[in-house]
């Protein structure tokens, strides 16, 4: 068993007490009075994780703060922390809320395992210095710059996940999302995550990934709305999403890669539709995104952008979650940091057979005890 679990238990309980207290808008003095503590220092020590609570004290906290035991003790949930941004069109609020809860458990599980396993994440984080007054060209320039900085090569989409994980320590998950949600980003200390709906087309998946990356890179300066419904009402929210689209477009289709391909078309006189499908397939983007990028670069007019996205061959649907995430899950089982049954439910598997298949799908051996 990893010793980090013991160290973080008091911290977790204390932090959750503080979250529940603040949600009820109670001061420390007021809570002390209701719990029956003589001095505020006791509560301060508990909330900061310096002192464990006794069973009797926890009973009183549960009663006063009106919370179940799991609220205080379950390490695999986000309480009072974590900020989600969803790329959703047509998804209902109930569906979003349910998915947010489930996704929050994955993020919390990931973050907790890294804590138990004492994975050192760099405290420094790359950030884009853009504001809501930045021009679209600046967002494009940032995308172009990042593609070069991260050496994403001739097909940036194929190396983007690895680069995000390597340079940002951000987890990227391919998951099944409710109808209408195509992507999501979650900001939480030590567990920033980008999630992509794996059932979307390859072009859409990559664009969503790059779009959500923009949000992770600009959380502080340009906090996105909880839900980007693609037609945000507020002008600032709309601006942020447009900047994200411009960034994503340039990241996936840098000028230096696209222009030579465009020259080939001009020289060969290739049919525009045929060329678009070929280049979109090559770059793993949608023909629509390609058209918008060409227009941005001044190569075609608005009227020439395909109104209908052409199907491109995107290969198989990505395996659920990610290899990195499942390696972490495997290690968690080995270290007794999660039980098999708990993991099965956390990951939404049908049972042990489903869990074994999941490890297999990521090319990982079946952990002992599954």
């Amino acid at each position, binding site marked *: *068993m990893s*010793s980090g*679990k*013991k160290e973080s*238990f008091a911290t*977790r309980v204390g932090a959750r007490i503080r979250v529940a207290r603040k949600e009820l808008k109670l001061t420390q003095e007021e809570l002390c009075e209701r719990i029956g503590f003589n001095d505020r220092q006791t509560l301060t020590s508990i909330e900061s994780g310096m002192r*464990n*609570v*006794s*069973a009797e004290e*926890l*009973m009183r906290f*549960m009663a006063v703060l009106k919370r179940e*035991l*799991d609220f*205080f*003790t*379950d*390490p*695999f949930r986000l309480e009072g922390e974590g900020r989600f941004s969803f790329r959703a069109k047509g998804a209902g609020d109930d569906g979003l809320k349910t998915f947010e809860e489930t996704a929050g458990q994955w993020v919390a599980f990931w973050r907790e395992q890294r804590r138990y396993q004492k994975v050192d994440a760099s405290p420094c984080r790359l950030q884009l210095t853009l504001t809501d007054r930045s021009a679209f060209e600046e967002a494009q320039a940032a995308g172009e710059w990042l593609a070069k900085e991260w050496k994403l090569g001739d097909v940036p989409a194929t190396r983007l996940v690895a680069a995000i994980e390597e340079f940002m320590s951000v987890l990227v998950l391919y998951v099944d999302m409710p109808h209408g949600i195509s992507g999501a980003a979650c900001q939480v200390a030590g567990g920033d995550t980008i999630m992509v709906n794996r059932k979307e087309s390859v072009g859409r998946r990559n664009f969503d990934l790059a779009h959500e990356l923009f949000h992770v890179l600009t959380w502080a300066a340009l906090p996105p709305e909880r839900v980007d419904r693609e037609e945000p009402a507020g002008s600032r929210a709309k601006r942020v999403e447009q900047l994200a689209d411009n960034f994503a477009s340039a990241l996936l289709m840098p000028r230096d890669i696209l222009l030579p391909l465009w020259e080939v078309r001009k020289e060969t006189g290739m049919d525009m539709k045929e060329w678009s499908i070929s280049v979109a397939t090559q770059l793993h983007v949608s023909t629509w995104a390609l058209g918008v990028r060409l227009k941005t670069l001044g190569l075609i007019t608005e009227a020439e952008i395909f109104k209908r996205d052409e199907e491109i061959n995107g290969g198989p649907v990505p395996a659920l979650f990610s290899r990195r995430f499942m390696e972490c899950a495997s290690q968690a*089982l*080995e270290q*007794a*940091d*999660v*039980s*098999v*049954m*708990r993991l099965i*439910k956390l990951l939404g*598997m*049908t*049972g*042990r*057979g*489903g869990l*074994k*298949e999941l490890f297999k799908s990521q090319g990982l051996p079946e952990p*002992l*005890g599954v």
Partner: protein
Amino acid sequence: MSTNRPVLYLDTCAIIEAHRVGCWRQMVTRYELHTVAECRDELRSGNARDSEYIVVDVDQVERDMVIHGLSVEQRIAAGVKSASFGVLDAGERDLLAWCAAQAPTAMIITTGDRAAIVAACELGLRENLQPLEEVTIAIGVHADLKKHYRRAWLAEICTTCALEF
């Protein structure tokens, strides 16, 4: 139900494994079997679409076992005592919380899960743990048990726990 038979507590997975290897009826004859309501409910919610799904007659299991419901106080007492409590499934948690709340001298607990074994050790139940393999030997059944229901598995984890505490 109170008998002179040894008292054996089983979690959901151990009940399923006993059914998988076909030694359930012999266990019922030899032991006084106990579990908690959460484990019974988990048995009912098993997904038949899973490739490793094992059919368990839960109505019969209910008749064969003593099933306990937990109080909030019992859960809290275990939750505060074991740092691993939160990483367990609800059934595993309740089973261990119930056992920890009893006078566990003559109690045998069977679970194959590594995290559950660690939590049991944290709750002071290490001496009460027994692998399903021991149970099948006691009832004279030669069962092809999975690795995590065998002596070596339990011994290895308990040793690790002993070294860490």
